[in-house]
């Protein structure tokens, strides 16, 4: 197989991991954004336990993304992590607090203790979601990468208005996604409450989507070039809008399964749009776009390592899907509290 094919395959593996991560951890981060608004302790516990067996495995996809980057695109891995140093540290801190909050919350009966950890759970979910969005925003804008493949971006420029807006977009997206997941997992009064949440979250998500699209068009026009050159790519946004339109309809008909499915497809398609728009760039340079940009061709690792990557993926991914299927099958259906729940 020519090296170029291997590079594209590796890029697709990374891309698919990102899409899966956003779809999966997206809903449990979303649950984190909403759990604090669930009202009484019992309801909060149900929400927390709805992601109990899953959140850990979902977070592993983030590890998988960076693992895949490290092996297949070490320069991208290094530039991304050292360039966004403080932001990544903040995000990691978020992940630590979140894991601890989920684990510690129900270990004491006192409500003060529990509500404190619910606050921590909400706060950390916010930080993580926001940081992910801000990083994406910066990657779309382009970052100052030098000839030496270093990127020195001061904190003040990290929070460019556009990136901040993408960060907020991410929050609205995950909150919507999380609420739709919860509708499948809950029943009765709590479900009714969440139904109302979703009714307001979906229009909010529409607002962010439309504004972000226009803003992206204005600030980074080259993203649209691919669509103009290859008209066939317009299928993707068309299907996206179709599925986005499904969200309120399925919600109104109380077909929550379909609703969540549409939400998952919406997220994947959103990500696909970005991939089509930026291919083959991985991190565009704002200093010298044509020379310093890290693309999947100039930033990949050597041939042997790429082949190893393919082997890991070929053996590993089916296994991962198998574990996932087993886990989600065993814990399907409504969440109920037992004595070994969180």
């Amino acid at each position, binding site marked *: 197989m020519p090296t170029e094919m291997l590079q594209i395959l590796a890029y697709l593996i990374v891309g698919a991991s990102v899409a899966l991560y956003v779809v999966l951890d997206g809903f449990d981060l979303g649950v984190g954004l909403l759990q604090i608004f669930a009202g009484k302790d019992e309801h909060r516990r149900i929400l927390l336990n709805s992601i109990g067996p899953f959140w850990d495995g979902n977070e592993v996809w983030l590890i998988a993304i*960076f*693992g895949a980057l490290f092996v297949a695109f*070490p320069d991208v891995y290094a530039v991304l992590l050292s360039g966004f140093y403080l932001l*990544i540290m903040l995000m990691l801190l978020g992940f630590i607090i979140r894991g601890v909050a989920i684990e510690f919350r129900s270990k004491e009966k006192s409500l003060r203790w529990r509500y404190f950890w619910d606050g921590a759970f909400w706060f950390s979910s916010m930080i993580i979601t926001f940081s992910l969005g801000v990083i994406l925003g910066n990657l779309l804008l382009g970052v100052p990468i030098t000839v030496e493949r270093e990127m020195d971006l001061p904190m003040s420029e990290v929070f460019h208005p556009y990136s901040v807006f993408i960060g907020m977009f991410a929050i609205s997206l995950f909150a919507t996604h999380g609420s739709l997941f919860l509708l499948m997992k809950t029943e009765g009064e709590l479900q009714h409450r969440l139904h109302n949440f979703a009714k307001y979250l979906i229009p909010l998500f529409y607002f962010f989507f439309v504004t972000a699209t226009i803003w992206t068009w204005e600030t980074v026009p080259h993203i649209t070039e691919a669509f103009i050159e290859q008209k066939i790519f317009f299928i993707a946004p068309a299907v996206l809008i179709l599925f986005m339109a499904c969200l309120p309809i399925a919600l109104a008909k109380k077909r929550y399964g379909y609703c969540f499915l549409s939400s998952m497809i919406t997220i994947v398609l959103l990500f696909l749009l970005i991939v089509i728009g930026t291919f083959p760039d991985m991190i565009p340079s704002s200093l010298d776009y044509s020379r310093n940009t890290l693309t999947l061709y100039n930033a990949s690792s050597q041939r042997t390592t790429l082949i190893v990557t393919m082997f890991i993926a070929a053996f590993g991914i089916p296994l991962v899907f198998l574990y996932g299927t087993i886990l989600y099958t065993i814990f399907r259906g409504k969440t109920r509290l037992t004595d070994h729940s969180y």
Partner: protein
Amino acid sequence: MLSRIQFALNISFHYLFPPMTIGLAWVIVFMEGLYLKTKNREYYKITRFLVNIFGLFFAMGVATGFVQLFAFGNNWSQFSKFVGNVFGSMLAAEGVFAFFMEAGFLGIMIFGWTRVKPFTHFFATIMVSLGATFSATWIVMANSWMQTPSGYKIVGEGIYKRAVITDLWEVYFSPSFLTRLGHVLLGCFLTGIFLVISISAYYVLKNRHDFFGKRMLRGMLWVALVTLLLQLWSADSSARGVARDQPVKFAALEGIFETKPNTPITVIGIIDMETEKVSGISIPSGLSLLTYRDLHTAVPGLNEFPKENWPHVPTVFYCYHMMIYCWGGMVMIALLGLLFRKNFLKRKWFLWFAMIGIIFPYIANIAGWFTAEVGRQPWIVYNVMRTSEGVSRVVHRSDVIASLVMFIFMYSMMGTLFFYLLNKKIQKGPVFDDEEGSDSEYKDPYLQLHKK
């Protein structure tokens, strides 16, 4: 230097947990196996109790371990670019083959008691243990390549320098990999075993949970003794591996400066860097005998090597000896325990000793890891890349300090909470709400199975 402190802090705090999860996971497999075989409810209770504790350790391990994969890129971006070809695949494989397995089956292990059949649950427990073990395998593999790099060549120069694989097999199975893996895993098992010993000693002392206390203490002491002897053998081959591959580090372990025949081994001593002498009790020819199986062959001393390639000798020396003393401490617990096994309560001091004995495997793990890593300095990849070359060039001092302060604060808070909860669980013991007559949904899985 700041980056080194940060990495050392993160990894040390992280390393408090995985050895316990790996060791404890296998103890749980053992207990659950016994339960399935004997159908004795006592084993069931012990298994559930240990899974509870396991969950706590696991959560901490995951929360702190999450940081590690990012740390390479954050603080060591030059290193990451340099080794990406070689090193990346091991970390990616760890993610795909180990983490997903652990995370997937952990849910079943903790939440699945009433959702799945006992054998499915047992299977999940085994998968979690295997996942934890694989994780250690890949990490030790990656680290061993840093200690004894092989199967690669270097292309490019200066900041464009990259290591490129020439022989994949040699990269994965670098000379030190298998011996070090054995040593690390046995260390993990000891940690798990001594946690159970410590808890059961406490129960015997307080005269609670008779079965867990006495029966477990007796059984586990035997297991401990066997594991300790295996560890002795593994330590011997590891040390000889170091002597072969990293002579500078080996000389630092024992504080050997001059190359002399009949090299002595220090039992206990103080190292003085000014005069380059070790004073204390030592056995003549001891090191020569252990290293080369011969009384006379000289072990090369530090003075054979340029001083800029020396690690920080006192740290290596003291950490290494600390690890060995801890091993001695564990052997004493195992031997004394077996000697007193007829009636523990007569010798309360032993129970106290066994209870605090949990610190031995802990100190040994950390000291051993420090010995290996500080001993590798000043290299990040042994004899290939210096640590100073590996550090990120764009990350500012102030950023590192800020994040360092943040992490120290977080870790101390988490540590406190962790001990508080651990203590609470141990105080409660292998008792579940159902036995206290509350309205929980818990049922013995076997009873449930028969009902169907």
